[in-house]
């Protein structure tokens, strides 16, 4: 695999807070920093509610960031944007949503859903060109031409998700944020879609932020993987590194919790089932966000927020166990 080093997206100390009541602020994303290289797939995994979707949605400006920088292809897109630049951004960045039910307008025919972006950006010169593009997209994602005149409710979950992918691809974007794009698909179709996403990437140089909870699939598709916990990034490295040498205790417990498609192994495997609740992002634990569930928590973990730093080349982690200062102190 050729090393990808040109930064397409830089996310710096990104925060997204929601005011949930007059007094309470929910810190959905609380200072994450990472780059996405041109042509790569960066996988994003983590506990439900940890802020993966919010991170994606803030990058694509469905939400305005509370703080931090988002730099896309050298241009700051995290601040105030004119309508024109928002529109331009929406052609270059597309999102495939987690929920294939809520994300498709039930009153629109499939052809009009897929052509939505084509129409907004005036990408087709004639109605024939528009329909040709729709048919091409339907076939690209493994549906039939006959599906063009049907409505979303007539499709199964998996079929609907393919409609969502076709819609995103139709405007020929550079960067796709795929939020759980294959969760609703069965494995043989997952394989097709993942192979398809990879082919499209090779052919068109697409860059992906791939949000998912299926770690074996994330490992398979991603060049690098970021692990989030409660609005923070816990660890980020190449996917082999994350799976073979996880450093953060949270990553380690995640890996042990994956059910393996091998009944004999499943019956005998020991797994670390994390105790305790996921803390609320309204009132997160002081210091390390994971300390209330971490089997290795120390005194310092409650007091000091672990620094996000590169412990080895390309391997980032935020954990006091891997703090340079602490290591030398102990030694």
């Amino acid at each position, binding site marked *: 695999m050729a090393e990808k080093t040109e930064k397409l997206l830089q996310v710096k100390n990104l925060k997204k807070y929601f005011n*949930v009541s007059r007094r309470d602020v929910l810190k959905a994303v609380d200072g994450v920093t990472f780059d996405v290289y041109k042509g790569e797939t960066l996988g994003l995994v*983590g*506990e*439900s*509610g*940890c802020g993966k*979707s919010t991170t994606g949605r803030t990058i694509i400006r469905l939400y305005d960031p509370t703080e931090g920088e988002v730099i896309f292809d050298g241009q700051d897109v995290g601040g105030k944007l004119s309508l024109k630049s928002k529109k331009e951004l929406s052609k270059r960045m597309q999102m495939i949503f*987690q*929920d294939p*039910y*809520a994300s498709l307008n039930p009153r629109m025919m499939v052809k009009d859903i897929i052509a939505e972006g084509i129409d907004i950006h005036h990408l087709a010169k004639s109605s024939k060109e528009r329909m040709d593009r729709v048919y091409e997209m339907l076939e690209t994602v*493994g549906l*039939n031409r*006959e599906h063009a005149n*049907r409505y979303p409710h*007539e*499709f*199964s*979950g*998996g*079929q609907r998700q393919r409609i969502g992918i076709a819609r995103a691809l139709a405007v020929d974007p550079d960067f796709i944020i795929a939020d*759980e794009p294959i*969760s*609703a*698909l*069965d*494995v*043989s*179709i*997952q*394989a*097709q879609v993942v*192979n398809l996403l*990879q082919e499209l990437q090779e052919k068109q140089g697409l860059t992906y932020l791939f949000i998912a*909870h*299926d*770690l*074996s699939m994330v*490992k*398979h598709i991603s060049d690098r993987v970021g692990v989030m916990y409660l609005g923070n990034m816990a660890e980020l490295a190449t996917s082999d590194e994350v*799976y073979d040498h996880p450093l953060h205790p949270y990553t380690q*417990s*995640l890996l042990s*919790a*994956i*059910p*393996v*498609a*091998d*009944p*004999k*192994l*499943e019956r005998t495997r020991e*797994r670390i*089932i*994390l105790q305790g*609740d*996921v*803390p*609320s992002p309204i009132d997160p634990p002081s210091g390390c966000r994971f300390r209330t569930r971490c089997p290795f928590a120390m005194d310092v973990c409650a007091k000091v927020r672990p620094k996000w730093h590169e412990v080895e080349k390309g391997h980032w982690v935020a954990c006091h166990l891997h703090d340079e200062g602490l290591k030398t102190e102990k030694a």
Partner: protein
Amino acid sequence: MDHLLEIKDLSVVFHIFGADVQAVRGISLQLNKGETLAIVGESGSGKSVTSKAVMGLIPNPPGEIATGEVLFEGKDLVKYSKKQMQKVRGKDISMIFQDPMTALNPTMKIGKQIMEGLIKHQSLSKHDAKNRAIELLQLVGIPNPEKRVDEYPHQFSGGMRQRVVIAIALACNPKILIADEPTTALDVTIQAQILDLMRGLQEKTGTAIILITHDLGVVANLAQRVAVMYGGKIVETGTLDEIFYNPKHPYTWGLLSSMPKLHAKTDKLLAIPGTPPDLSNPPKGCPFAPRCPHAMKVCTEHMPAYTELSATQKAACWLLDERAPKVDPPATIGVGGES
């Protein structure tokens, strides 16, 4: 045998403009007391429609149960009135839907949605129902349940919503729990807890579970028996070990070899080419024939009958006919784990 639920020759058709979608085409299945039966299969193969038929939730029109019986403790639910079914639902049989968005009412507080069934089926007082709702939220791992019980669905993330849905389904200790993709939206540490929870609940109450999932890891973790569906039909059934270690149907082979392996490097996934059949015009013969690498002439003409492979395993494939050539399963089946 003493089946808790027996589906006999069930067919479900949707009449949409200009076409009849034959979503489920004559399937038979049994569910025994206290067991977990997994239904796996292609997207659109009729898994959710099957479970909705059991729940009496096929929208009519456009849907219709064309043939068959759904016998619950010997009584045919297909013949039940809407009112009778309402009594069964939530109390005897409850369902966790694939889609946590539509399963919850966006305008109603989480707690109230859990309390509804408790008040209706168990005649709890409002006060007791609320306490039980908080208990259930705790059980499914929602932090600060006393506070969150008064919040609305949109204030919960996708995964948390699904846990609420599970809490609602468990509220009245049902005899059968139909779980349609119950952990798809959850990350694995919570999935591990939920699977544990479901197993614990099953041991305590003897609830039988029909588990619909795409995740063969989840199947391996929770199920005792597996039914594999394709194109509105059940193409293979067997015990967990039979399906994973000795599968006989080419679609089951494809299913097992298209998963990425966590502990090995897979360059390209082995995808089954093509798309599932259009069920408004289903193929005459084997539904898998257009995608099957072993298809023969007979396959496109005639639907294969079931071949009994053991007391617990059967498959519908012409390769199992004694006149057919012998074909070995692909080496790529190499199940997960240590390989």
